[in-house]
């Protein structure tokens, strides 16, 4: 196929990707959008394969078959609660693929073109950082390594030194074609990715995953610049993904009232040891039973459920749905309040509840649900903590101060399902638990919910 026709196909593919993303703007059209995107990909791959620059097909077919098989397998087997790890891992594969392409391009550089070389260097560095960073992030989410922030002496200095060395080798790579520099740059960039993500704790993972998502797009975009004739398909698509990740990162940061620098370099969750003592709340905690909650629900009209990461850990989404069904049967209106950073990635709770067949119009964003808490007869907090802490609004010395929260303390009664009194990710005591309207139901969330269901049904 002639060059111009291939480019025409790329134009069609790019348009299909944009239309596909546009369709993701509503749950009604989202599935179609995903399908449109996959058509775009099929056209792009087919056009490339039919191009004159492809000389041998045997190895290529092997790569496509193996990759597709593994991808489908992964997609069909992964549990919905494990979606953050899955997305994390895919970010990493995207970065690694870009790194390898840039590497191959560097080795086959006949002439030395400065723009191509810069494209290669950026693709190598961003690709490698994305790859190793994502592997660490996924390992933390899967709890293969501790989800807590890993800090060691001179951590920031070491990271800074590695970053400077990375820049140094980037310059060398552009100035002189030498494969050894390429290997060293790949390795040192990979190290940088590890050092950047290791100190970041599990609760900050939504930000990290979004950022790495953006990087995987940027790496693909830079790869577009590694060709003598820049590849518009890679540039456009890479930018779309890059923009998407950046937007999500910004949303996550805003929902935690923290800057991106603070997330990456702040080492949240480690500085709070002192802070936790300072913000220790005082008062009595009221612990109750399922029957007590059942009584609270007599004559209730509106109940709001606040899910958090604990619901995912306990795989409790199905029991939550059963509980809300039991309530609705009694004529109680049930709404779900979703904080933007509930869970380990944006939209994590929405997917889990969708899996449990909760209709999405029963889910409310923070701004929409906050004015409704004062009308709620009962709020049930399932495995959420920091995002409900009123001290984020009232206590200036709290590390959470300024973070937008779900204002559950305005409800008539609050019930918190919790395993123990351990503080949440931020290491801060939750003032909510000392509120006289609040009742704690200690134990496994699934078990507590099952008890609640039978209490409601009586």
């Amino acid at each position, binding site marked *: 196929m002639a060059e111009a026709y291939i480019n025409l196909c790329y134009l069609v593919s790019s348009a299909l990707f944009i239309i596909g*993303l546009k369709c993701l703007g509503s749950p009604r059209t989202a*599935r179609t959008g995903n399908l449109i995107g996959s058509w775009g990909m099929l056209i792009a791959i087919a056009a490339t394969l039919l191009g004159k620059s492809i000389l041998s097909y045997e190895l290529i077919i092997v790569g496509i078959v193996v990759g597709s098989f593994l991808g489908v397998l992964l*997609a*069909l087997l992964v549990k919905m609660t494990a979606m953050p790890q899955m997305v994390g891992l895919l970010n990493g594969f995207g970065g690694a693929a870009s790194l390898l392409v840039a590497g191959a391009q560097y080795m086959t550089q006949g002439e030395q073109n400065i723009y191509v070389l810069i494209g290669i260097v950026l693709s190598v560095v961003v690709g490698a950082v994305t790859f190793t960073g994502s592997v660490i992030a996924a390992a933390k989410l899967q709890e293969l390594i501790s989800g807590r922030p890993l800090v060691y002496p001179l951590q920031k200095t070491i990271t800074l030194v590695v970053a400077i060395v990375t820049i140094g080798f980037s310059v060398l790579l552009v100035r002189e074609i030498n494969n050894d520099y390429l290997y060293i740059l790949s390795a040192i960039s990979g190290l940088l990715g590890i050092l950047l993500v290791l100190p970041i704790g599990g609760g900050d993972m939504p930000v990290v995953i979004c950022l790495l998502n953006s990087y995987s797009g940027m790496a693909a975009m830079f790869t577009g610049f590694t060709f003598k004739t820049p590849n518009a398909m890679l*540039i456009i698509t890479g930018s779309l993904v890059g923009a998407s990740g950046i937007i999500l990162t910004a949303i996550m940061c805003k929902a935690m009232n923290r800057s991106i620098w603070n997330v990456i370099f702040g080492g949240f969750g480690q500085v709070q040891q002192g802070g936790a003592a300072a913000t220790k709340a005082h008062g009595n905690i009221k612990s109750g039973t399922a029957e007590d909650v059942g009584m609270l629900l007599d004559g209730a009209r509106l109940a709001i459920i606040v899910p958090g990461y604990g619901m995912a850990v306990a795989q409790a989404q199905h029991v939550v749905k059963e509980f809300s069904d039991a309530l609705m049967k009694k004529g109680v209106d049930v709404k779900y309040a979703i904080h933007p950073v509930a869970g380990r990635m944006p939209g994590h709770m929405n997917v889990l509840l969708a899996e449990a067949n909760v209709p999405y119009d029963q889910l409310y964003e923070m701004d929409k649900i906050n004015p409704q808490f004062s009308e709620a007869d009962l709020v049930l907090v399932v495995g959420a903590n920091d995002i409900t802490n009123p001290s984020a609004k009232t206590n200036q010395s709290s590390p959470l101060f300024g973070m937008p929260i779900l204002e559950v303390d305005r409800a008539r009664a609050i019930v918190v399902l919790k395993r123990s009194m351990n503080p949440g990710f931020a290491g801060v005591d939750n003032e909510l638990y000392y509120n006289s309207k609040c009742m704690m139901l200690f134990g496994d969330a699934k078990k507590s919910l099952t008890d609640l269901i039978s209490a409601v049904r009586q």
Partner: protein
Amino acid sequence: MDFNVLVQALTILTLAIFVGFEVIAKVPPTLHTPLMSGSNAISGITVVGALLAAGGGHSQFAQILGVVAIALAMINVMGGFVVTNRMLRMFKRKK
């Protein structure tokens, strides 16, 4: 690539970024997880670069890198589209 070609590529890049921001900003929070897995899938577009690197009759080592890159990118493409579809199938309205 001369300077003029670079500027043309940067033009495409800039416009694509603007389109990206416009389109993605309208995606509601409830669909943010499928958005991420969906963008995983389309970031597998690196496969186009990988195909060119693997099939271009370059040195054997470069070809091997290309093939591994193809496999990795295809994991993204297929894994991303399939898991996104799996998720979106579950999103239902109130009856």
